[in-house]
């Protein structure tokens, strides 16, 4: 895009009162959550918006792009993938240097504006190889995200949404907090879960919002030339840290998946008719049901659910003809949550 065109687009956007922000993340980092929360907050303030979702890879751990458009007239909001964003939000610093054609398209179209990066570095230390002349903000929200979700590493989505709102002031703090509450009430959490998660996330959102408000804007000149190539290894690393493995089910990759679980399967000895239907290799997608024969455990017959890998999908409950396996809230079963 030539600079004449960039100017023309910027002028038209200012006249139409339209703002655009691009969010670059890895699938599983909470990009969609960030969009849900921001959109709900915008709706509370009677603004019009749309979100274009765009992913090049359909696998977990693949790159995901969200383009959020805000304005006063819904008919004047584009849905094309790339235009001329005002804000670029990177869920991780490694999104800058990944040699990915779609990232390139977004970065190349972003020649001025405000760059928001989740990074412990300062903006001057960033390696930004695209032609860019504008402002940059670096805030490390990983720590906030970890307190919010009690996971490590934590998906930074919700914290990034709050950071973006704090930096840009597109929504007020009150609307944002309301939207965070909405987000959790929409998911129908159990009382015990809600009591744990909602205050933690509200607190985290408030902290990230304030961090955004007080963040220092620094002028950044992009290099315009790439002096080094960093390929997908870093991306894979993020993907791996979020999901056990992008290709393999948890039981094969050998990584614990217990944090996914809302429900857990519980076996009842009294109802069981010893039919062996539930035995792992037939139905359980994570092969975590084992049947102990006499001598293998204290009982004559025992169905053991491996809580390290059960994700609470409920297939065993469907399969069991006698109703001996049933799903229970994970937070109400002792030892079912990590």
């Amino acid at each position, binding site marked *: 895009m030539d600079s004449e065109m960039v100017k023309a687009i910027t*002028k038209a956007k200012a006249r139409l009162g339209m703002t655009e922000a691009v969010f670059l993340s890895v699938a599983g980092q909470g990009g969609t959550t960030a969009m849900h929360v921001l959109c709900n907050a915008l709706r509370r303030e009677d603004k019009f918006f749309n979100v274009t979702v765009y992913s090049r890879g359909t696998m977990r751990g693949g790159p995901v792009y969200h383009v959020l458009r805000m304005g006063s007239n819904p*008919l004047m909001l584009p*849905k094309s993938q790339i*235009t001329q964003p005002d804000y670029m939000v990177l869920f991780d610093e490694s999104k800058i240097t990944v040699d990915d054609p779609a990232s390139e398209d977004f970065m190349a179209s972003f020649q001025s504006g405000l760059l928001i990066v989740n990074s412990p570095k300062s903006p001057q230390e960033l390696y930004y190889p695209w032609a860019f002349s504008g402002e940059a903000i670096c805030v490390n929200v990983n720590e906030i995200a970890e307190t919010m979700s009690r996971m490590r590493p934590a998906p930074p989505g919700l914290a990034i949404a709050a950071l973006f709102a704090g930096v840009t002031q597109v929504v007020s703090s009150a609307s944002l907090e309301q939207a965070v509450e909405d987000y959790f009430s929409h998911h129908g959490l159990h009382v015990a879960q809600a009591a744990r998660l909602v205050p933690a996330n509200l607190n985290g959102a408030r902290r990230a919002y304030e961090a955004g408000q007080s963040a220092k804007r620094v002028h950044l000149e992009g290099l315009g030339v790439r002096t080094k190539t960093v390929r997908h290894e870093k991306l894979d690393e993020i993907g791996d840290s979020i999901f056990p493995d992008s290709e393999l089910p948890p039981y094969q990759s050998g990584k614990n998946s217990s944090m996914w679980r809302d429900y857990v399967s519980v076996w009842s000895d009294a109802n069981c008719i010893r039919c062996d239907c539930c035995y792992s290799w037939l139905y359980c997608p994570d092969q975590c049901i084992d049947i102990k024969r006499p001598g293998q455990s204290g009982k004559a017959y025992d169905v053991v659910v491996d809580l390290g890998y059960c994700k609470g999908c409920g297939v065993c409950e469907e399969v069991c003809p006698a109703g001996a396996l049933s799903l229970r809230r994970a937070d109400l079963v002792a030892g079912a949550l990590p």
Partner: protein
Amino acid sequence: MKAPTKAKLQKALTLTGNEAIGWGARLARVPLTFIFPIGPSDEVGETMGQFYHTGQLKGRIMELEGEDATVSAVAAAAANGIRTLFSTNSQGIQKGWACLSTMGRTPIVLPVPHRLLSRGYVAPDWMDHVILRDVGWVLINVENCQECLDMMLQCYKIAEDAEVQLPISLGYDGWEISHSDEPVFIPDQEDVDRFLPPYRGPNEWEEVLKEDWRKIGAVRRGRMERMVESTYPEINYNAHRALAKAKELLKRVDEEYGQLFGRRWGGPIDASMSQGAEVVMVTMGAFLGTARIAAEIARDQGIKAGVLKVRLFNPIPAPELAEALKDAKVVVALDRDESAVLYHGLRSALYSVKPQPRVIGRIAGLSGTSVNIDDMEAFFEEGAAAARGKAVTELGWLLKATREAQGVVPDPNY
């Protein structure tokens, strides 16, 4: 341009396109939803499942073994007076093709979040609507989530009208609309009940239609001997007459909906941004927002640019297009299908208009490739060049395969 009215009494929710379709069906009190999973359609069924499961809506989900079986069941339910919902796209339509293409006069509504046909990728283009075009479906295309909800209600009303009785497909670009979060105003259930009466099925249909149904039924059941050669053209002629009625009804229903709910989308076409324009871009769906901004930019640069929104894809509203475009110098048809349906439709619609506007066509955004503001602006500039009498590509493809070779190349067959 007028933004859709925010009626005071309507509450807003943040919904995706698919969820808005589900909400439309909920307000229409659809008691039976069929699910056969295929992205980006699945969310429609999921939304309905939630409504049924939580008791917000009375009804049930039915899952059958494939799209062909599902479509047969949808037709059977509709013929027996049950309002249904089934959403599928691309390969789902191809798999259910034998049933979808012989739907005849069955009043069903099929929301189609566009996705390209096959080839292992899931991005949107309009080819799944193009293949439905030639088998007598009413095809409507919408541009945002609010329009998805509003048109669900209107589509049921049109499809079930005694004089129409046709299958309607409601198309919206997959992912770009189906998965875009937007504010959607939810009409009041009481008003919707007043607008959309319960569906009673074939008992109340007029006599002629019963006769058509008997004949179609005879064909369906394989009793070919009862089907004398002469009745087949007659059945199809009646269906085409119904297509014309569907177009007229779309105008009337739009007006009625506007009075009740404060939102009018314009019937078969929306020409509100093309009045007095010399270079008019004609397009549909998710392209429209980008096209309108590009038109604003082109106006800044001195081009009398306009955008015309086509909402009725089949039957193509030829007289309406001819009337709306009679003062234009150049019409740029922007297609997201390799058949260039809008381009050819406009060429025949404007053939007898004097002085004849020049029609140039652009095929862009196939398989979801991005068509950006600068691309659209370039189309307007080409249109302006054509208006000055310069030679431009008649029908061109926008290619973006590599960074080096980006741009419009002429279609080899024109």
